[in-house]
């Protein structure tokens, strides 16, 4: 009996803990793209693709404070490895990394302003802002 109660207690508590670390990939509410795979998101954030599947130009933003957990969840690589990768892409003239924004407010307003915007944020920080969640990374 006790065991069952503890099991249920954990079942309810676990999602609460999980939410704390949950990073979601977001886009503009008017973007017709509603769902994306991890690999597609990776291609855009790593500069291999510059557009969504429907052809809409993708404009990616980095959230300075969440870069480390985001890239670790998305690519299993450290931020040093991501920076070394971008050094190769930038200085071989193949592209520019996402613009870094320092606050959740700036991320949300950038996503709301541009139909092709794509960014990531901690789910808690979205509040009542009108953005579309494309994928949740945990």
């Amino acid at each position, binding site marked *: 009996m006790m065991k069952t109660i503890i099991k249920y207690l954990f079942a309810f508590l676990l999602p609460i803990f999980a939410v704390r670390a949950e990073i979601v990939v977001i886009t503009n509410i008017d973007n017709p793209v509603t769902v994306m795979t991890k690999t597609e998101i990776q291609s855009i954030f790593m500069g291999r693709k*510059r557009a969504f599947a429907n*052809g809409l130009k993708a404009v990616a933003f980095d959230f300075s404070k969440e870069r480390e957990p985001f890239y670790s969840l998305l690519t299993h690589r*450290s931020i*040093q490895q991501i*920076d*070394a990768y971008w050094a190769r892409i930038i*200085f071989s*003239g*193949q592209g520019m990394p996402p613009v870094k924004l320092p606050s959740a407010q700036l991320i949300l307003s950038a996503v709301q302003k541009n139909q092709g915007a794509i960014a990531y944020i901690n789910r808690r920080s979205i509040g009542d802002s009108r953005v579309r969640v494309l994928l949740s990374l945990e």
Partner: protein
Amino acid sequence: MNFMSLAEKLVLFKCYLLLFVCFMATANADEQSKRWSIKGFGSFGVTGSDTDRIGFLRNRTQTKAVDNNWGVTTDSRLGVQLDVDISDSLHTTVQWIARDHAGDFFEQNLEWAFLSWRPRDDINIRIGRLGLDTFLLSDYREVGYAYVWMRPPHEFYANIPLSHFDGIDFAQKFVIDDSFLTLKLQAGYSYSQMHTGLGLFSIKAPIAGLNIVYETGDWRLRAGYSYMHFLSDVPSQELVDAVNNPALAPVYPGVSDLSAALTLEGTDLHFMSVGGAYDDGIWLGQAEASYMETDNAYVVDAASAYFSFGRRISEFTVYGLYGLSFSFNDRVNIPAPSVLAPPLLGLQKGLNQVLNFNSIDQQSFSLGVRWDFYTNIAFKAQWTHFWFGDRGAALWTQDEPGNIPSQVNLWSLGVDFVF
């Protein structure tokens, strides 16, 4: 006083023209979409060996070698890059690198100045000064922060004197599921300067190339072919005049036949290479192989390859690297003159040196560590042990071919950064 020749003035003029076009394009950009950035990269390294018989060069465009007198110029440099988005599809990039390079400091170190047009997501056309894309590291071999080693594998990269050309390239990217296949065609004209045993050599050559890159998951594979046609010659004119001197024929029969071997102008060079790189975040591996074929005796046919493995342990990466390179030329034995007069013997010795100067017969094994100790700065330490065959140190500076050690140790320490 050193007055510039007309050719040098033209080269500089072309350089300013490239920059002017890039800046004009930028100035006319629509303010709305204009996004620009200045970024840079650099390295500071000290390097030294345990010999004073031959001098180490990072590549053959360098002028200052290091030996058991340690030096900083070999592995130090500073690059800046300006990027401007003119519109959604137009972009300019200018990159200049302060580094030890033979010839004109401003002109030779202007690595890129191009206008890039991307009419579609999968097509990129670039015009201006471009990087010569013929191997895995071709466009970023000066950006130490982007790779684990102290410098690109010596056996493979030191023999390539060209890093840029003026012309056009066309790239098309094909998306195949989650993989990318990129085809790139390049054509243009290269003016690159390097040092040779005879003095400064200004390479003037039309070039063309085809490059295929396949990227999938943790893998990057490539194959490429480049062609160049020499329109200029090594500074061998004095020797050519000497062997062609009609007064020489009776006392040194057959010596005039050597003038062809001393001439580069009008000959071709073909360069083929394949390579692959793997990086899963923990393990990394990379290998390349190349073959260079020429139809002249001065730049010799050569094969090169390397392979490298590395493992990341938190912010450290330890690696091993093995490389080899050898040329396919036979030793040239200049026959003795029929009259053993000192000037003729001097000419024989000079010809022997020049024609046996370009042999490569070298292998090396390196062990090193990269430590990513701070954001955008990495510390590196590398030890390399070289083995040489007879006469095979053409990638190094040598006072006399033949007087080379059979083994050399080279150490280097440095930091690489981006900003």
